[in-house]
């Protein structure tokens, strides 16, 4: 690709790269949100247990 005159057509690789970056960050944020939600359910259950005892 080094003897060419125009820039290489690497648009698809760029899309793939940004897909990985944005997708990974979104997944990490989602994992935090899901873990918080799960802990909130546990907290509600513990509240119920404490009130009933």
């Amino acid at each position, binding site marked *: 690709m080094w003897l060419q005159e125009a*820039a290489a057509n690497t648009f698809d690789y760029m899309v793939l790269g940004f897909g990985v970056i944005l997708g990974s*960050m979104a997944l990490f944020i989602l994992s935090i949100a899901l873990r918080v939600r799960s*802990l909130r359910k546990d907290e509600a259950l513990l509240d119920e247990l404490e009130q009933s005892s």
Partner: protein
Amino acid sequence: MGPMPKALKALNVFTSLVFAVALYLVLFYAPREAVMGDVQRVFYFHVAAGWVGALAFLVTAVAGIFVLVRGDHRWDQLALASVEIGVVFTMINIVTGSIWARPVWNTWWTWDPRLVTASVMELIYLAYLMLRQGIEDPDRRARFAAVYGIVGFISVPLTFLSIRIFRTIHPVVVGNNDPTAQGTFDMTPKMKLAFFFSLFTFTFVYITLLWHRLRLQQFKERIEERKLRALTA
């Protein structure tokens, strides 16, 4: 979990805004590189993700020192939160590097010193997360993780310096390139702006995520304590 602090809400908004600006600069403002084409735009966030990985592991090592010196459990929470973010961003760094390499080096992977040291660093911190799970006693776990985090940090400067001390085909962004480096380019002023703004943005992404992850860890440990009390009552 208590309500989100106002400062964190403000940080969420600020980080989202600067991230949107960084995306604009990288995708539209910075010119298309003359030889590599559009894939070179991945470079801005590739380096920024690597920077976040190194910063996160540095925070873990420093937090580890505080765990050993002061014995305060909150530093262990910080170390764990930071490692998790570091692992995610180092993974982004490695995978985007591979995507960039495919059209530029004509391969997804090569046993280059930078690629190897970065992958070893990632494995070291993945092992940190796994090994922690195997220790029940919180104090012992915190001390073990602290020592591991400090010793494991050796892999970070080694990764950074690998392209400067070993013969490599990986380009050097700051400093002189090895004559054998492939895929090097000179940054125009617009490219430099996009590059440094990306570093700035990802630093704030790290701080924001760290705060959220730390709150999650504190919440998790409070719930675990309550569960233990409920079981023993």
